[in-house]
């Protein structure tokens, strides 16, 4: 897609906003990784390093009323939906001010008010759930859309199949994506599926699919826009395969020796932040100085968030016993 086309479809403020979230995601996750290495964060630590354009691109394409059912490498989407860096860090520290109040950890952040369906570890489990959210919109005749996805590995699970099929049969307003980063933990794509483009999975459901450069936030944004528009118009679900590469280990504890170094070198050149900066300069939307400024702003916000998270209280032990069941008031309008 050429410069003119992008300029005509993505406004300067929109693109700058996405750039800001790319940087915020990168810096926040880098900080989380550093905290992990310092032993200050316990539990799993999965980042979207090198894949930030996907979550930032799709979450930017959504309207306020839409809903996401994200995946474990979608930090940008949480931030765009309004979870603050401070809340994220509080979540990682197990603090009461995190979105799960210490009950759950890391990227398992949900908040209905901000249109976020929480992630469960069991991969692809949130796809049927997302489908059901879309069903609710369809039943009520609302023009809201659900955006959900999983990794290349996650597409092998039965729940992926059942969700994709049901959404197609009922033409539900949901967009599915696959964050194809070539690996599922240590498992390369060729041991995960006998196809080389995950998008072929969509053919089983009569669902249109598209392959998108997942490292180019502009292309992700535009593809998401198209799919969302389709869903909103009642034309049914779309499957988007975002090609990308996992640049860190599966989790921060994993050195990922099983990934050929050349592959990483190659993908490093396609870094989504670099790519976005090239685009912004080409479009005349920004320059090096403004990138630097964004960097400073982001750092400041993360420091403030860290202070918030550090100062936040831990939950008290007995809070364990709270919240197994919802009370009636919680569901009445």
């Amino acid at each position: 897609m050429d410069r003119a086309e992008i300029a005509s479809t993505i406004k300067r403020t929109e693109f700058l906003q996405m750039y800001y979230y790319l940087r915020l995601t990168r810096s926040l996750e880098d900080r989380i990784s550093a905290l992990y290495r310092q032993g200050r964060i316990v539990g799993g630590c999965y980042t979207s390093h090198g894949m930030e354009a996907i979550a930032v691109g799709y979450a930017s394409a959504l309207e306020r009323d839409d809903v996401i059912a994200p995946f474990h490498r979608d930090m940008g989407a949480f931030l765009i939906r309004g979870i603050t860096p401070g809340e994220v860090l509080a979540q990682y520290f197990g603090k009461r001010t995190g979105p799960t109040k210490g009950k759950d950890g890391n990227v398992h952040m949900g908040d209905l008010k901000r249109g976020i369906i929480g992630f469960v570890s069991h991969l692809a489990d949130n796809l049927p759930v997302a489908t059901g959210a879309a069903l609710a919109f369809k039943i009520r005749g609302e023009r809201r859309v659900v955006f959900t996805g999983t990794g290349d590995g996650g597409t092998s699970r039965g729940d992926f199949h059942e969700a994709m099929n049901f959404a197609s049969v009922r033409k539900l307003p949901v967009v599915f994506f696959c964050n194809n980063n070539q690996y599922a933990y240590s498992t390369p794509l060729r041991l995960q599926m006998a196809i080389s483009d995950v998008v072929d999975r969509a053919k089983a459901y009569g669902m249109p699919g598209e392959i998108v450069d997942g490292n180019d936030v502009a292309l992700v944004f535009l593809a998401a826009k198209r799919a969302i528009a389709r869903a909103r118009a009642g034309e049914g679900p779309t499957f988007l395969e975002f090609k990308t590469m996992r640049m860190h280990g599966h989790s921060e504890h994993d050195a990922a020796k099983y990934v050929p170094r050349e592959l990483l070198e190659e993908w490093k050149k396609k870094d989504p932040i670099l790519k976005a900066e090239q685009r912004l300069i080409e479009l005349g939307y920004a320059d090096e100085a403004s990138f630097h400024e964004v960097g400073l702003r982001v750092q400041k916000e993360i420091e403030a968030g860290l202070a918030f998270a550090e100062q936040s209280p831990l939950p008290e032990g007995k809070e364990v016993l709270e919240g197994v069941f919802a009370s009636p008031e919680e569901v009445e309008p």
Partner: protein
Amino acid sequence: MSTGTASKEVTYLEAISQALDEEMTRDERVFLMGEDIGVYGGAFKITEGFLDKYGEWRVLDTPLSESGFVGAAIGAAMMGLRPVVEMQFADFISCAFDQITEVAATNHYRWGAPVPMVIRAPFGGGVHGGPFHSECPEGWFFHSPGLKLVAPSTPYDAKGLLKAAIRDPNPVIYFEHKFLYRRIKGVLPREDYIVPIGKADIKRPGTDLSVITYGAMVHLALEAAQQLATEGIEMEVVDLRSLMPLDKDTIYSSVRKTGKAIMVHEDNKTGGIGAELAALLAEDCFDSLDGPILRIAAPDTPVPFSAPLEEFFLPKTSDIVAAARKLAAY
């Protein structure tokens, strides 16, 4: 067995249909999903006529995918609807196990979003269904925090508990016993009512011992109690109705009064709900116990198909009578 004769009697099955129908009329958020519930009206015809009345977006025939449609119910519930999903047979709930135990059950605990949904599970044997059309899967879910479980034994309870389940802000599994569908009748109140979740019901008072049970077994226990009464043994029949949460007050006060307890269920014995009941009594009512806590349950096998095997497998009235005699004499 019937609970009245004055007005028109309805079956247990009709009571379930009525509850669904009335709740769908009362609250437009309530909708149904499942296999063959639409034009066919469901394998047991519980939703016959519903498609015409409520349309295909409130009576959704789903693809054959239990995990998919239970997951969808969770999502719809979080967005403010009140899904009621039907398992064609409770046996197939194993296919949706992950969505139920990992997503629905834990959702509110983990991040505070309520999941007000109901899963209807036609369960139980005595219908020559063999291993996969007769299961009692309640034991698994009893051990999954975050789920409520109910299992009515009469039309009155069937209707009232289903309404309560639909109005509950939590995921509720509603175990409806297939054997009772057309065999048990009763007269229902004209007005709207619910049977609150978490309240057991003394189906027959007694002083000598307590039998604690639920579902189809309640009727065997009542038969046994009648027989025992002729021998001068007064057995109290506690119908749990709600399996989760348990009504410990009613259970404990019954056993504290009688000093003797028998747990009866159709589910496999080992690790069944009877085990928890016995454990609770052995811990909390130990000083009131005047004898061992007995359990009558199916043996630890799948449900067999052939008539003599299934007959052997299922708990019988005579088993309850024999155990009660033994315990009464203890």
